[in-house]
């Protein structure tokens, strides 16, 4: 259990690793979607190409949009881009970094789909069987009443009776699949070479110091937004609890004078109640909450926490009746 907590904490503290994990999960979903999809070539000359190219192009677009949607950085980037300047200056490099990171992650699942379709070959066969020259192969069935184009269009369909006793269909399929796999491997090689070159050449064109800064601040923005959301939720919880208790106490029949208690008869308060009041941070009215949320968007605070890091701490000194110090925090 402890180890699980540690792992969870590690992942949550590094927002990039969560995004990477989600990206990989989406790629796996893409593969699973392809294997479970029942590809059904119409085997008609007018529709083959349309259907195949549709299946090769539309799912990647869907996966791309999904990749953008599930990425946390999209929201962070849009927020940072659209917010008014306020107290905090805007850094376009951070927005650019977030955008390119989001784009790269979103492109992984579509590329996986395209590569899997090419390496599998079914879709290529369906799309391009009509373009193959039948003279390259022997055994073209010519006893059906159909013209050549229609026969070639039927090649992707295994169960069709016109190919029952000939190896023509298998030969053409193999030929087209070979092309398809060649294209697939070439694309893969190209992408990997591109990635390798990019990695090697980047330090020459990049200012390493500036890029360290950009990475720090983009991670910071993500963490800040998460923490703000959490603080809002905690605050809402405490607000609700206090509101409900207050409501109950208002309904009392007997009139109670609201005087501060003489301290020596104070009810011993439970410790968590004090922490709760602290969590309210003095924001205890609807207008105050609205103002706080408004300001958070229109006028984000400057990046300077010196005040709270060095605020005076309240120290306690215990003295006995004669004024002798028994204990002191000072």
């Amino acid at each position, binding site marked *: 259990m402890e180890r699980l907590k540690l792992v969870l904490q590690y992942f949550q503290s590094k927002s990039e690793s969560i995004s990477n994990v989600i990206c990989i999960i989406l790629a796996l979903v893409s593969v699973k979607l392809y294997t479970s999809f029942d590809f059904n070539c119409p085997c008609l000359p007018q529709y083959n190409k349309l259907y195949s190219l549709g299946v090769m192009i539309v799912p990647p677009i869907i996966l791309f949009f999904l990749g953008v949607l599930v990425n946390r950085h999209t929201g962070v980037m*849009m927020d940072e881009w659209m917010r008014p300047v306020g107290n905090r200056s805007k850094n376009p490099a951070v927005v650019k970094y977030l955008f390119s990171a989001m784009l790269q992650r979103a492109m992984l699942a579509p590329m996986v789909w395209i590569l899997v379709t090419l390496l599998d070959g079914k879709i290529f066969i369906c799309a391009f069987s009509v373009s193959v020259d039948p003279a390259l192969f022997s055994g073209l069935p010519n006893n059906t009443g159909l013209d050549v184009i229609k026969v070639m269009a039927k090649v992707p369909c295994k169960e069709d009776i016109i190919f029952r006793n000939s190896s023509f269909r298998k030969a053409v399929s193999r030929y087209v699949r070979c092309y398809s796999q060649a294209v697939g491997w070439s694309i893969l090689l190209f992408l990997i070479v591109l990635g390798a070159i990019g990695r090697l050449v980047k330090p020459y064109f990049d200012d390493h110091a500036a890029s360290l800064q950009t990475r720090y601040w983009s991670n910071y923005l993500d963490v800040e937004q998460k923490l703000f959301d959490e603080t809002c939720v905690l605050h809402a919880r405490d607000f609700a609890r206090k509101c409900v208790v207050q409501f109950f106490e208002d309904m009392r029949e007997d009139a109670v004078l609201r005087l501060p208690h003489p301290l020596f008869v104070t009810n011993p308060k439970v410790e968590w109640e004090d922490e709760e009041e602290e969590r309210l941070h003095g924001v205890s*009215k609807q207008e105050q909450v609205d103002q706080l949320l408004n300001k958070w968007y229109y006028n984000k605070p400057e990046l300077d926490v010196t005040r709270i890091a060095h605020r005076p701490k309240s120290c306690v000194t215990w003295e006995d009746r004669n004024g002798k110090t028994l204990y002191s925090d000072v």
Partner: protein
Amino acid sequence: MDKFRMMFQFLQSNQESFMNGICGIMALASAQMYSAFEFSCPCMPEYNYTYGIGLLFIPTIWFFLLGFVMNNNVSALTDEWKRPTGKRTKDPTILRYMFCSITQRSLIAPAVWVSVTLMDGKSFLCAFSIDLDLDKFGNYSLLTGLSEVEKLRLLARIPCKELFEHHEIREAASRYIKCISQACGWMFLLMITFMAFLIRAIRPCFSQAAFLKTKYWSHYIEIERKMFDDTCKEHAKSFAKVCIHQYFENISGEIRSFHHHRSGKGDSDDEDEDSRRSDEEKLLGIRAQDDMNKVLWNWHASKPALALRKDQVDGENNGRLNGEANGAANGFAKGHTPDVEKREWAVYYSKV
């Protein structure tokens, strides 16, 4: 504090992921129901279309309504909608936001059903086989010499394997219709993904500040509801305990004082005394049936304003800063109560 953070994160993610979990379970249930369902086309010209299209839309509507039923926040929404204004103003944007988020979650299972049905193609084949033009698939002389009605009857039998003898026509036709059905399915998926993308990614461009506010208050409403239920439960428990205790006392004829002692007395560490005291505290001053009824009635008829009283929030701060007023009291307390709280003495030292 760290322990609190983790606990809170678990709770918070628990509540949201509970809703997401139900959403995911319903989506899986929808896909599973489709594969378990035995599709059997009637293969008659009058009923094919109704059956095929009905099977596409009716379970969709059913899953959508089921999503509403299984969502806990629907009652929170209706409560907030129907309550009298009272001391707390109503904000229509919050109602809209809650409704939108409930609807979004409920739309997932129907969308899964529609896309699985379209990708599979059987319902389209059943509905549209009578509209086929068989000349597209080859030179088949099946339909020559048949009357209109018989033509329709023959075409209507295409979806049924056992009733239609010409297998190659059946294969070609079913492949064709399935291809169209899958194209429709992919277009449907593209459309909903694109709309979701527009809503999630482009929305921050518009009214982000107002959105933060609505999100906070709608979440607040749900939490407040839960807190109220929890407080009522605790109150009922304490009420019952005190009531029963009083009843026993009345029967036994002994009168024991409930008011807590001034502090520091030797027998105050009696456990029963402590638990009784905390039960009294939990009653929050409500001790009669009529009072409780009033509480529950007013909770709907006149919700409290969203403004916490200063003395409740800063009760301790007042005590801390009021040096002179408590000086004498502290002097008194120091002599008699060795276990007085730290907070009575607060000396501020700055680190500067």
